[in-house]
């Protein structure tokens, strides 16, 4: 089944097919790794919308990537609960281990590092989301092993 057909099927879950924009964009992103122009064309095609509309929706939400990211995504929560228990040190450990700053991707395209707002694991900070799975709590000393794990997964 083409992506456009899969998107069309998602639309039938809702009283109005436009409601499926968010899940459809997620599906497209899983397919491409990010949201390139063709993803917007296919999502729009499956839901009878315009690509511009779909792009406007996607740009509102933090979880959609409008530019390519690495094969792995490391997201460090730096909101106050995690911040109070050392999120900055965890972030700096990732920066040192990966040799990049938040918002950047390693040269080999392996890992993108970024910060996120409260992830909802505040009692077990610092929360780090690795490829959308939470690790909690993460301390700076855990960071080398996490990075090694990602490198060996490739």
């Amino acid at each position, binding site marked *: 089944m083409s992506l456009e057909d899969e998107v069309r099927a998602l639309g039938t*879950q*809702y*009283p*109005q097919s*436009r*409601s499926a*924009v*968010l*899940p459809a964009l*997620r599906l497209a992103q899983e397919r491409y790794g990010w949201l390139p122009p063709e993803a917007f064309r296919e999502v729009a095609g499956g*839901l009878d919308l315009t690509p511009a509309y779909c792009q*406007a*929706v996607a*740009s*509102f*939400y*933090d*979880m*959609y*990537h*409008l*530019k*390519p*990211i*690495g094969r792995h995504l490391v997201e460090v929560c*730096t*909101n*106050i*609960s995690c*911040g*109070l*228990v*050392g*999120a*900055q040190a965890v972030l*700096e450990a990732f920066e040192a281990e990966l040799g990049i*700053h*938040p*918002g*950047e*991707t390693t*040269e080999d*395209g392996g890992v*993108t590092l*970024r*910060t*996120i*707002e*409260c*992830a*909802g*694991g*505040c*009692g*077990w*900070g610092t929360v780090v*989301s690795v490829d*959308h*799975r*939470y690790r909690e709590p993460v301390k700076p000393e855990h960071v080398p092993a996490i990075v090694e794990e990602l490198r060996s997964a490739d």
Partner: protein
Amino acid sequence: MPIEAIVLGGADERDLTQLSEYRAVGGYDALTKARAMEPDAVVEEILTSNLRGRGGAFFATGRKASFIPKPGQNPNPVYLTVNADESEPGTFKDREIMLRVPHRLIEGCLITAHAIASTNVFIYLRGEYLDCFEVVRAALEEVHGEGLLGGVTIVVHRGAGAYICGEETALLESLEGKRGQPRSKPPFPAISGLYASPTLINNVETIATVPPIIQRGGAWYAGLGVENSTGTRVFSLSGNVVRGGNYELPLGTSLFELVYDHGGGIPEDRKLKAIIPGGSSVPVLGADEIHRRLDYDSMAEAGTMLGSGAVIVIDERCCMVQLGLRVAQFYMHESCGKCTPCREGTRWMVQLLHKLEDGRASQGELDLLLDVCDRILGKCLCPLGDAAAMPIASYVDKFREEFQEHIDAGRCPFGGESSLEGLFAPVDQHTHDPVAQVPA
């Protein structure tokens, strides 16, 4: 007497994610009971319980349900939407409820759907909660297999990272496939909500409290907790505390009991400086207010709110200007941009707090900060603006000397030793469009 958990009850002893285990503790008996009752009688039972919304607004749950038009009064279908977009900083209770007692949430959905004559339920789940999505979906499959849905469809709809979608009308916009920008009210969702149809929106914890209320009676529930704040609450405890986590306790429990008896106090016996009692959007309390009780009236008396039940403990190492800056940055990032006081005001607050923290602010700019807060409060389309202005104004109010020191000394008095040191400008690091560069 041990404290009885209502919402999370039984989850310590059994794996309640399994339908058979949930049934073994009487699960879905309340649904059978409710379906044998008239819908109005179910609403009446919830009214009797005095249950109030656990998302943060604390609105009477039974009253909210009673606003939904009765069959025949409105030509459109009625929708039930569960707000599972838990994103208030410090809050992680709904996540635990979904992970550990998904069937109680589903049973609550089915009972509430019966009460308002709805056959369409949407659970709007925050996008990051992948684990919750998997657990709730698996539970739904079991329920479907056992034929318990009774003609009701429940769709788990995942968000995609936007705090504002926890605001009920922004949630509806998002669920309709739009940018999550709040609507102006009225009309209220009870009359014109999802697809312009009557819609009841309840928080996860609220809905998961409904089965025990139906099973054991509204009067029983009303006897728990304190007046105006009946029942239990799942408090999310975080920050500088030994045992962070969720604790389900009767409303009216003191902050001291939560932080010291349950949470084990502050690590290394450091001194308590401040407590945020209901998520980052509520006014802060000083260390001398640790004996305040966690209920609606006691918090109002202290000039703050119970909010989402997220208690954040702050020890003496934290610079309150830095805290204010980090909180303001969050709201600036999450402002949807639809109304001016919030869009411009949050940005302005961040700029002023940056100057204060760096020791570059004048006396007039501290006054200006409070003035900006004042010009946001009560003047925005939705509560997000207030959520930014209230805490910042309270930090200045309660810790004015510390703000003043930044101005007088021309630098942060913590000299690089604050627990939040360096945690700034994160907004540049996680914008909607990450500046990720992948070599060709």
